[in-house]
């Protein structure tokens, strides 16, 4: 009896201390291995964090490392692919707070980059890239305070990825206007398909919807100034919310879309389009590769088509503006590492590697125009052609804003998706301003 009590007391004591430890929860910064090397001839080891966890891009990045290492024998690059949300939301911020961030890390530019620069860990590579950055499109998105803190390796456009075979079977055509999209949805519904898949669990796919309505309803100047002032109080944004609510009322999405993730597994929104359960999805042009990663459908490349977000006539915004962004990389570490990193980024932006990234890698549009011909997927070719004619490219709002306001905006939009009301609409307007 006594023994049991002692044991019980020990259990209690251990539990209490564990509870306290867990409660205090200040997460340790993740660290990574990186070598040293101060002069250009000595060995340099670089760790490369990116989100290419699936083929085909994984293979393209792996062979890019091999190609670079062959021409730079003193440099060794360790590839560390990390699941996208984990990489973007958790690993990178924590690593930049730690003392040993990855030497090359993926980065989407905009306000988030500006915030990361304040960590003092991101290398200013302006002089390293000066000789070649002029030929890279979209490079200004990876600047902060006029200095180059990163380099894009591909560009993205958000639009509808749809199943041509399902459209044909149901007898519908690509919609040019919102009204046509709604009537297509009704036909698809009647034929037993989920018209549109959306991964609302991740919140940012919801934001694409609201942001596209905002592009259609708001002049570009209003959007730029609102992102700058972190306030979406302009009447055109509440019109965007109202338009979105009206669209949501038509039940365009799959059953249970609020609990669906966008990229993880066959049950994700990408998986639903790949398996033919849903007919289309509003996503970035990384979507085809995500679909291939979560599906065994070998005919997918020929079944996929692309069309831009439909027009909403009579609105104050642009009918041909697109939402987009790009994947870029930033460098950290001492001079030798940053220099080798910049050389590697130059290699990634060389026409030959660019053709690999957008061709077999199927990762969006190239940053070097000449590589565009390498795009294999017909759907992505359509997207790339439209991308060139767009009135302007607006960076995803959550990336254009610093992290917290961007995340708050995504959360507010996701809440609006869950229950559209004037209350949730006004929290979208104020979301980016919360302290």
């Amino acid at each position, binding site marked *: 009896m006594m023994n049991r009590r002692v044991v*019980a007391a020990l259990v209690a004591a251990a539990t209490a201390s564990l509870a306290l430890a867990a409660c205090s929860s200040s997460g340790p910064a993740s660290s990574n291995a990186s070598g040293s090397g101060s002069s250009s001839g000595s060995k340099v080891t670089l760790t490369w964090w990116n989100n290419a966890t699936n083929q085909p891009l994984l293979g393209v990045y792996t062979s890019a490392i091999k190609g670079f290492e062959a021409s730079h024998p003193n440099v060794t690059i360790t590839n560390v692919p990390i699941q996208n949300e984990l990489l973007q939301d958790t690993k990178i911020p924590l690593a*930049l707070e730690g003392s040993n961030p990855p030497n090359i890390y993926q980065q989407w530019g905009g306000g988030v980059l500006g915030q990361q620069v304040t960590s003092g860990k991101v290398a200013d590579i302006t002089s390293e890239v000066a000789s070649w950055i002029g030929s890279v499109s979209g490079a200004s998105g990876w600047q902060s305070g006029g200095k180059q803190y990163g380099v894009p390796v591909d560009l993205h456009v958000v639009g509808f990825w749809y199943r041509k075979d399902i459209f044909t079977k149901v007898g519908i055509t690509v919609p040019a206007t919102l009204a046509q999209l709604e009537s297509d949805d009704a036909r698809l519904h009647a034929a037993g398909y989920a018209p549109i898949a959306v991964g609302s669990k991740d919140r940012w796919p919801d934001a694409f919807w609201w942001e596209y309505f905002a592009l259609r309803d708001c002049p570009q100047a209003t959007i730029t100034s609102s992102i700058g002032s972190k306030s979406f109080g302009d009447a055109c944004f509440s019109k965007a919310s109202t338009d979105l609510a009206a669209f949501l009322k038509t039940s365009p999405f799959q059953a*249970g879309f609020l609990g*669906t993730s966008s990229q993880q597994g066959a049950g994700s929104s990408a998986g639903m389009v790949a398996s033919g359960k849903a007919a289309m999805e509003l996503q970035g042009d990384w979507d085809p590769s995500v679909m291939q990663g979560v599906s065994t459908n070998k005919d997918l490349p020929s079944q996929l088509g692309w069309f831009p977000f439909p027009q909403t006539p009579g609105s104050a915004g642009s009918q041909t503006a697109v939402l987009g962004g790009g994947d870029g990389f930033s460098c950290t570490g001492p001079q030798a590492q940053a220099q080798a990193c910049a050389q590697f980024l130059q290699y990634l932006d060389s026409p030959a590697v660019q053709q690999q990234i957008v061709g077999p890698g199927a990762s969006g549009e190239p940053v070097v125009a000449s590589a565009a011909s390498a795009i294999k997927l017909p759907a992505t070719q359509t997207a790339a052609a439209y991308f060139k004619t767009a009135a302007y490219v607006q960076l995803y709002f959550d990336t254009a804003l610093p992290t917290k306001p961007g995340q708050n905006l995504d959360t507010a939009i996701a*809440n609006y998706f869950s229950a559209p009301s004037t209350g949730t609409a006004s929290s979208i307007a104020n979301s980016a301003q919360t302290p």
Partner: protein
Amino acid sequence: MSQGTAIETGPGPAAAAAPAAAGPSRAPWWRGPRLRQNAEVTILLAPALVLFAGFVLIPIVIAAYYSFYNWSGYGPLNQPIGLRNYSFAFRDPAFIHAIEHTLIITVASVVIQGPLSIGLALLLNRKFIGRTFLRTVIFAPYVLPPAVTGVMWSLILQPNGFADQVLRALGLGGLVQLWLADPHIVLWTNFVVLTWQYLGFGIVLLLAGLQGIPAELTEAAAIDGAGPWQVTRRITLPLLAPTIRIWAFITVIGSLQVFDVVWILTEGGPAGSSGTIATYMYLNGVEATDFGFGAAIAVILFAFCFVFALVYQRFALRRDTRGALTRAVG
């Protein structure tokens, strides 16, 4: 004390005076019983104390310090904002909902998992064929990492997933819900998965407690004419009470901090309808890189756990732990 003893046991006054002054009959200082005891205690406790201070006390103090700053995690701490993080948290409806959800899960864990664990433990304490197998089956979910549990159940519970198919096959298609997407249901979906994961732990703890109840007591009661219900009610449960109290303590602390399964299943969504204090902290502190705010939420959660732990130790566990956690008895 020892000097007095030396005098009493000394051979005579003259002989006693000299030893008392020089102390040759006593052990040298490094062998003195008290010093040696102190040294032993110091050596044995020091590693644990260093670890406790380094990984528990100091992080708590640092988290409390961060919580008074507006700090994105990048760059130095240079924007003190007093209690603004705290006042903002308590004005945020999402945080108030997170507290409500956490309390619902905590109360439901004790009220629903408690009787269930006790009942199953009593059942599994009886001798029957396949008992070991059943015990293993029931304990197995607890051994799974919560991340695996989360991923597995998110597949089982997706629309038209395994759960829905089973219900339809049983002719219970009417019960099918959007388990992970309906804001009115999703908190309870999380609770069911948490129960699935942690029920085995309670049962094993209670089984261990049941092993400690002497068979003589129940046999004597049975001879005196007590029925099975009376034996359970009057003998088993009272003697099991210390284990139940410990189980409740562990369960409440665990429920207050619940994070992993909920995060993987729903990320606290849709629209925060299954958010707990810990998922709120992760979403608004870590993902939004607002570490000052996250630290404030951590401190609030710590305060909840700490106050509960103190109150529970004082009023419920005191008789079980007397002499071990309180001052020495006797």
